[in-house]
């Protein structure tokens, strides 16, 4: 059946309700809601959430925005926590302690700090052990919850509170870690990079595949942050679109090792289009800093080309 956002929103429960306290213009809530809609209505779900914006804004005692079962333990161990719940499910199901006809799916949400940095060991371990779970990283490119500190997901030159654009050092000097590739190197059955654009089609379809592919699966979702990135709150969807049209955030999936780029812009836009509306890159547009934009563009081009090559190579090998 063709993807129809109206039908999905009308018919499938969000399991993530209104009333949460995340910022206007934040990319994360629509991502969480759409991913939860990818669950089959009859399936039970357990969500494990790393400490971060999403957690502190959606489950403040005695309230919760989650209508499905939810657990938060700490910052760096959402994957391990989820793996324990999944292990209990397997053991209890095997012993007939749970209803036979009812299925539970396991989904973990963590920000880039909780995933690329402090939680990478826990994530890597859970994925390697082969738990039947989906890990979703909502990547907003810095520690936004604690006040915009740089993470290993922060793009080069970004102005953050621990990589401030100063007179001598113009923002973060290191390149972004490529977590999606790291997860692909775990040889998981399904790894994808996605974003909330075009009525969320790409996001929804990848979430559905990730959740219903048996074994450990991983989604990396770019989730812009108006406070950290410095764009007007009503610009969220345009920022998302610019991220993919400049190939800053390529959309692709790796199914059993085979790469498929799911969106190739007809006209690849220059990176300035993505950088310009964001306050964190403002210093890059000062006279004399043209080299920064050039260096940024160069890296985007290089990574995009690598991806095109991977797509070609992995599909050739599998013929």
């Amino acid at each position, binding site marked *: 059946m063709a993807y129809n956002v109206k039908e999905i929103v009308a018919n499938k429960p969000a399991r993530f309700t209104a009333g949460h306290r995340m910022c206007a213009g934040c990319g994360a809530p629509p991502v969480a809601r759409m991913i939860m809609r990818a669950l089959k209505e009859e399936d*039970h779900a*357990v969500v*494990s959430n790393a400490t971060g914006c999403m*957690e*502190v804004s959606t*489950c*403040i*005692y*005695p309230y*919760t925005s*989650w*209508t*499905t*079962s*939810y*657990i*938060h*333990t*700490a910052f*760096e*161990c959402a994957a*391990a*926590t*989820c*793996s*324990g*719940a*999944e*292990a*209990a*499910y*397997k*053991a*209890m199901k*095997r*012993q007939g*302690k*749970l*209803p036979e006809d*009812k299925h*539970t799916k396991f989904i973990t949400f963590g920000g880039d700090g909780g995933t690329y940095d402090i939680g990478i*060991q*826990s994530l*890597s*371990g*859970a994925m*390697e*052990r082969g738990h039947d779970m989906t890990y979703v990283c909502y990547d907003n490119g810095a520690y936004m919850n604690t006040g915009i500190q740089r993470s290993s997901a922060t793009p080069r030159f970004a102005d953050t509170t621990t990589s401030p654009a100063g007179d001598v050092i113009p923002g973060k000097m290191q390149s972004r870690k490529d977590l999606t590739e790291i997860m692909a190197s775990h040889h998981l059955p399904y790894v994808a990079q996605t974003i909330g654009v075009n009525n969320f089609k790409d996001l929804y379809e990848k979430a559905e595949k990730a959740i219903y592919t048996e074994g450990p699966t991983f989604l990396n979702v770019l989730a812009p942050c108006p406070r950290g990135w410095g764009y007007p709150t009503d610009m969220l969807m345009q920022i998302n679109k610019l991220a993919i049209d400049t190939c800053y955030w390529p959309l692709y999936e790796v199914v059993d090792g085979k790469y498929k780029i799911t969106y190739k812009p007809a006209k690849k836009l220059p990176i300035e289009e993505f950088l310009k509306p964001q306050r964190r890159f403002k210093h890059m547009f000062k006279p004399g800093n043209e080299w920064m934009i050039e260096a940024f563009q160069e890296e985007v081009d290089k990574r995009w080309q690598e991806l095109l090559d991977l797509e070609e190579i992995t599909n050739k090998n599998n013929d």
Partner: protein
Amino acid sequence: MSIRERLSGNEASAIAMKQINPDVVAAFPITPSTEIPQYFSTFVSNGTVDTEFVAVESEHSAMSACIGAEAAGGRAMTATSSNGLALMWEMVYIASSLRLPIVMPLVNRAISGPLNIHNDHSDAMGIRDSGWIMLFSENNQEAYDNLIMAHRIAEHKDVRLPLCVCQDGFITSHSIENIELIEDDKVKNFVGEYKPEHYLLNDKEPIAVGPMDLQAYLFEHKYQQANAMRAAKKIILEVAEDFEKMTGRKYSFFEEYKLEDAEIAIICMNSTAGTTKVVVDALREQGVKAGLLKLRVFRPFPAEEIAKAVSHVKALAVLDKAESLNACGGALFTDVTSGLYTNGMQVPTVNYVYGIGGRDTTTKEIEGVYQDLQEIASTGKVENPYRYFGLKGGAK
């Protein structure tokens, strides 16, 4: 009929876990507790248990996975020592605050640094305020028995707290001793089935575990947790009573060894109690009224009961197998003396830090402690309450 065996403390713990048959065991190797998950994974591989074994990549993940599993509605166990416990420290507090009755053998070993793999109690002392029930074991039999009693205590509706069973690394974990095992079916009946009231896998009642808990509620939740620890005292005794009916083996908060008429006494935990008993017997033969209080339940701390049990002695020594580095005595010493003071009892009490990093504890040294106590008893004065034994060259 109970089963007579010869087992090490680690083997005995693994067998207790096999008989308990938990839903999930998540563990990471660390000396000297490694053997427990090692033996247990063999039971999993051979299909003798229904457990899902999660071979995690760290102790932090071990405790995280146990929390996930226990919150999901299963029985979860792990085992660790020393730095492994230190790495899971963050999650140890979270397990307790989420009121999850996870059970963990803790094979005591000196905490780094510098690195040392041998026994002392510095690992356990690091979690003494974490809200875990902490039982100590003199030998392999007690390590086994404490584990069999653990779930009944931890899972009780008035308690719902995690529990660790301590034993001395290498000294009991790797020493093979005679042991009486309980039959599988009797253990199964005694431990019972785990029926949590609320759990993540109940699709009929979705729940949220581990919310953000701010100024408006955290204080009350901590008070509830503290009350659970207080309530655990009664339950520990009730479970011990049932256990005695099944096995004939008697347990309480502590064991009083020739303490009733003692004039001088030692308080200590784990295997040192065995060494001390030998010394007490020898001194008794010489007509010295020496006694021992071997503490089994360190958390909840039976302060009042200890104070009453030693109120009649003329001099008391508290042995701490961990240096608190606080210039005012070990953790057990401060707990005991606080209990005495609060209960209005004045007993001349002295502290000894000993056995650090696996330094051998000999009967001669324990004799030395009793000699010191005789002197204190005769003068009624404690010159220096913060002492050491077994330290090369003595304390300066």
